[in-house]
Structure formats: C-alpha cells, structure tokens
C-alpha cells in the first residue's frame, strides 16, 4: 500500500485517495474536427509504460483536490507530485 504525498496535506495513506488514471489527457478543443479514430484515441487509448507514469489522484477522504503523480509502475516509487496546471516533468512525458 502506497503513501501518497498530497501537495496540500502531505504524505497520507493510499486508502484516503482515489485513482484517476493517466494525467495530461487534454480534452480536444473541437471534438467535431476529429475522426472517429482520433476521438477514440482521446477517450480510450492510454499509455501503459513499464516505468514512469504520470497519473491523476484525488485526495478523496482529505482535501478533495485532484493532483498529478509521477510514479514508477515497476517499483511503485512516487518520484514527484504536482498540482493541476503545473507543467509535467519533460523527461517522463
């Protein structure tokens, strides 16, 4: 079970959090301009890396804030957390 550092509340138990899947999936500005396949990519297709993944978590039982986590899917090590709107670590994208 992980300890997740909420950017506002500090490190808390995983049981206080909800998982939100991959981060930085930006909603297309003009969905109608997309082909079915492009739209399908946005809705369904996600990275599944062996290694570092940027993902969203919510401090559900805490401050109810959503935030981003850089986590290694092999070691589960969380290498950084950052607030929505803050830039993603370049090397992990």
């Amino acid at each position, binding site marked *: 079970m992980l300890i997740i550092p909420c950017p*506002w*509340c*500090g490190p*808390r*138990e995983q*049981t*206080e959090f909800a998982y939100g899947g991959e981060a930085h999936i930006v909603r297309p500005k003009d969905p109608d301009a997309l082909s079915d396949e492009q739209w399908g990519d946005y809705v369904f297709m996600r990275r599944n890396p062996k290694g570092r993944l940027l993902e969203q978590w919510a401090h559900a*039982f*805490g*401050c*109810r*804030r959503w935030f981003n986590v850089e986590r290694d899917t092999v070691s589960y090590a969380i290498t950084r957390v950052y607030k929505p709107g803050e830039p993603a670590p370049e090397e992990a994208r």
Partner: protein
Amino acid sequence: MSERILQQAPLAHVSARPGAAVAPVTALRYFENGLRGHINLRGDPTDARFAAAAERALGAALPTAANTTRIAGDIIVYWLGPDEWLAVTPGEREQEVVNALRSGLDGVHSSVTPVTGGQTVLVLRGTHARDLLAKGCPFDLHSPGFRPGACAQTHLAKAGVLLRPLGDDGMEIIVRRSFADYLYKWLETAAAEYGWVHATGEAPESRAHLANAQNTVT
C-alpha cells in the same frame, strides 16, 4: 399543527439513552455536541476582498495553512482545502453568520453553504481516545504536529471524518449525518476494552481549553 419545533441531532436516538452523568476519568467518554451551525465556505484566499470579508464575518482570518484551525470566540474555522473552509458556530448563531458572510461577500466569487443538518460533532475524552481511533484511522494520530490548532480529514473505519485534537486525551470528530449511526456503533464496539461511557450532556469544552488551542496556532 404543532407549534413546537423538534430539532434532532444525527445521534439524537443515542443521546436519548440513559447515560452516565459522572464517569470515571480513566474511561473513554463520548459526547455529541449536536445542533451546531455548520457553514461551508469556498473562495479564493488570495482574493483580498474575499479574505477580508470572511475575516470580518467570522471574527478571525481564515486559516490558510493546510490542516489547521482558527478559533474566533465561539466560532471554530477549519481548513478543508486550499479554497474551502468549515465554520462551526453555536446553533443559534448560524443564520447570523451566514448572513454576515453572504452580505460581506456580495459580488465576490464565493460560496456560503449551510451544511448544518448534514454533519455532527462528536467528542471523545479519555487517555485511550487516540488508541481507539487508531483502530480504524490510518492517519498518524500521535505525530508531533497533530496537536490543538491542527485538524485532519481522513477516514475512521469506512466513514470520512474531520478530526481536531483536544489536548492529549481528547479528540473531536466531525462526521456526516448519514454515517453517524454507523460510526457510533463502530466506536462503541472498538472501545469496549477501554471502558466506553456514554456521557450525558455536552462535552466540557471549556473556554480555557479553547484559548489554549488558539494559542498554539501559529
């Protein structure tokens, strides 16, 4: 139609049971401080107009450090998030404080929402208060920073709670109304080994204690 207005705190059915007026100090005493005014406040603390209006209405500046509280007279303000607070007032002052907030915040993007019926305040007193909560709470209740002036939102068993430490032997628990009965049963079951006493009346929240709590806020 009946003229008498019946107000019921979420655990009124528990409080109605015969309780002990005097409990041994070693025991774990439980109280419900029901029928307080609960006001949820949202706004941008960096917006000077918002911060000033909130301070005027509540009598103290909003606590902006995460997981802290601020006490202004008979109002306790809890940090819930970077743009969200809870103000707990005496029941009879709820409307007045809501009105003061709303009028002060007129034209300022904010939200003043009474949630009075939606939650209640439980108080545990006794040397084993933290041990009892540790049975169902993953938060480190003994961490040095978790002392009067702090608060924490976490979960206790399977109910979300807002905790506020009241010195070494006391803990305040704010829980949603619909979960209160479940949480009470859970507490009563888990507390059996510590000598659970269901005390009558309200928790002895002395002014001195409040002052003490306020002093430790930085």
